């Protein structure tokens, strides 16, 4: 009897992983991972802030610059309207993500009105997150392409190196998140995501919201503060 009880924590019973803390290891793991990701992004943001204003040649983020050798005039390179729009897309994707999670948790609750059916459609909200995430990535691709055309590459100056590294890492995280959400959507089409799958959706949601909060910091520190 004692042996059976002591072996229980290692064996998943009815799909639930018992742990000494009583919490699911996967959720503890994702929070620890997100805590470590804070350190990664802060190191990249610190690098950007330390190098800010120390570039010898342009283009610069907020100031115009004239090349003394060629006489070429370069405008401030950051495109705030496009980035504001992409920030809005990412914020709305986070809203869509919580609604997708909410829909999975309440899958068995009967829906009588059209509004309840819309709010209860996990497929709809997962599609929403994926489309908004792809929209954000398209804005970033447009931004990077226009920067290169205007003469700013990762090798041009300190601003270019730190900016492309920081935003590129963030974009890679968004891409990974979109792929993760695509796999959840595929599962939802194969067999409906049910309340038993809520933790799987929650893990993806936590990662996605983290990507959003990192962008909240980047948008202010890199784009808005001069």
């Amino acid at each position, binding site marked *: 009897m004692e042996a059976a009880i002591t072996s229980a924590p290692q064996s998943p019973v009815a799909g639930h992983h018992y742990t000494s803390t009583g919490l699911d290891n996967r959720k503890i793991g994702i929070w620890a991972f997100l805590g470590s990701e804070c350190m990664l992004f802060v190191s990249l943001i610190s690098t950007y802030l330390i190098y800010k204003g120390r570039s010898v040649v342009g283009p610069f983020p907020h100031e115009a610059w004239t090349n003394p050798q060629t006489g070429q005039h370069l405008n401030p390179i950051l495109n705030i309207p496009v980035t504001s729009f992409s920030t809005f897309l990412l914020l709305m994707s*986070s*809203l869509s993500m919580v*609604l997708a999670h*909410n829909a999975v948790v309440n899958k068995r609750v009967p829906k009588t009105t059209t509004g309840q059916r819309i709010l209860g459609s996990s497929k709809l909200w997962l599609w929403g997150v994926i489309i908004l995430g792809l929209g954000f990535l398209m804005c970033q691709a447009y931004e990077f392409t226009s920067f290169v055309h205007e003469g700013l590459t990762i090798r041009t100056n300190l601003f270019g190196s730190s900016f492309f590294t920081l935003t590129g890492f963030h974009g890679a995280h968004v891409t990974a998140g979109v792929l993760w959400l695509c796999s959840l959507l595929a599962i939802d089409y194969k067999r409906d995501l049910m309340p038993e799958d809520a933790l799987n959706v929650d893990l993806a949601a936590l990662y996605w*919201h983290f990507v959003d909060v990192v962008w909240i910091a980047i948008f202010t520190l890199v784009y808005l503060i001069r």
Partner: protein
Amino acid sequence: MAQHSDHAAAGHHDAAAHAHHPTAKTYLVVGLFLTIITVLEVWAYYVPSFVASKAFVPTLLIMSAVKFATVVMFYMHLKYDHKIFRALFTGGFLVAATTLIGLMFLFGKLAVRLGLLT
């Protein structure tokens, strides 16, 4: 046997935490709140007199911090979740924030102002 009751208690705790999760309406209100702050941030960027004032940077930092905290508390459910999750995230975040402040003192414009760097 005690372990079984621990697990039951933990399961009960999870269920209780889930029951306190916000509703879809709360999520929509939070989404609207985040949008309004973002609009205010961008609006502040386009007001030259405000950009030139000393309040510009602190205001943007505060608005950004409010957005950050709102997403973490409501969308990531940290306000309602277990304290271990809170400790894991805020622990990493505090180490990161302290590192950022330390690096700014050592190498940033702050160091130049303090005469530590030229």
